[in-house]
């Protein structure tokens, strides 16, 4: 099939709500094959008619909605796999050394500095800025996986905003110090995970779609 026709199919999919390249990839082949078959069966059929016929057999808008929903759940799962993969690395040597150092550092800070909540706030703010910057960088990105990776960091931020409101974190009791240390350490690890996520998503995209990445 000619590149012009493939571009036309891509445009048709975009108009019908399938915006991202990684979601379109399989559909383009499907529609192109359907068009080729329709033309083989009926040489009189126009390209546009064949495309509409393929769309109808896909289940129209409802078919696209189901497809996009499935793609979304697949992409979210992939993002969490990547985030968890980075976080799990911190439990393995040599990264485990960093986790222990971060834990000791925060234990010392929480025990000796009265401004630890301000420090926590500053940490969350840095993470927020990094996430906003990431989202801004991806504003014209044509990949669903990359776009959603920004949202995943939003969820992590939500948790980091939510957790400090919990009463178990307040006070100078011994368990509270441990909770605070664990939380600050997790914040540090998440910050690194957020930085690594962008690179991992880029690598993933490059390996799957070398022609555009």
């Amino acid at each position, binding site marked *: *099939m*000619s*590149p012009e026709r*493939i571009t036309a199919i891509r445009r048709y999919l975009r108009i019908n709500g399938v915006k991202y390249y990684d979601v379109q*990839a*399989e559909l*383009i*082949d*499907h529609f*192109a*094959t*359907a068009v080729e078959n329709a033309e083989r069966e009926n040489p009189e059929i126009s390209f546009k008619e064949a495309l509409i016929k393929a769309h109808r*057999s*896909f*289940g129209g808008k*409802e*078919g*696209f*909605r*189901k*497809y996009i*929903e*499935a*793609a979304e759940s*697949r992409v979210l*799962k992939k993002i969490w796999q990547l985030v968890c993969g980075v976080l799990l690395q911190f439990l393995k040597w040599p990264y485990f050394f960093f986790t222990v150092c971060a834990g000791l550092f925060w234990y010392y800070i929480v025990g000796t500095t009265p401004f630890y909540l301000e420090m926590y706030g500053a940490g969350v703010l840095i993470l927020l800025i990094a996430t906003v910057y990431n989202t801004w960088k991806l504003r014209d990105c044509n990949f669903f996986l990359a776009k959603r990776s920004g949202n995943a960091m939003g969820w992590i931020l939500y948790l980091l905003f939510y957790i400090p409101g919990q009463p178990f974190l307040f006070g100078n009791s011994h368990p509270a110090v441990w909770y605070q240390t664990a939380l600050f350490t997790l914040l540090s690890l998440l910050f690194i995970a957020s930085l690594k996520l962008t690179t991992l998503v880029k690598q993933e995209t490059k390996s*799957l*779609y070398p*022609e555009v990445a």
Partner: protein
Amino acid sequence: MLNNSLLKGTLNTLILKLLADNGQMYGYEIIQRIKESSDDALLITEGALYPALHRLEQQGLLNIDLRTVSGRQRKYYALSAKGKLRSGESLMELAQFLGAIHNIIKPKTS
């Protein structure tokens, strides 16, 4: 054409069986094969097939191979080792299910 709700619970098994028999297949090919093999009785919409394929892929039952065909990228699906095992189990379950349904619809006369 048969009622599509009858097909819903068996779609995964049909996909696994087709891939077990044919090795590698792509989405459009699977739809056409099911349509032809059932003499147009089973018509699967693409909106149902692809999410099912992606679910099976997520479960680790399918392996993916991307190839460039006629200027576009084509995604071929094949059974993974886990998928091969699941395919056999799934077919047995389906055969038992169909046997049970058959017994209800056409009870043996004693």
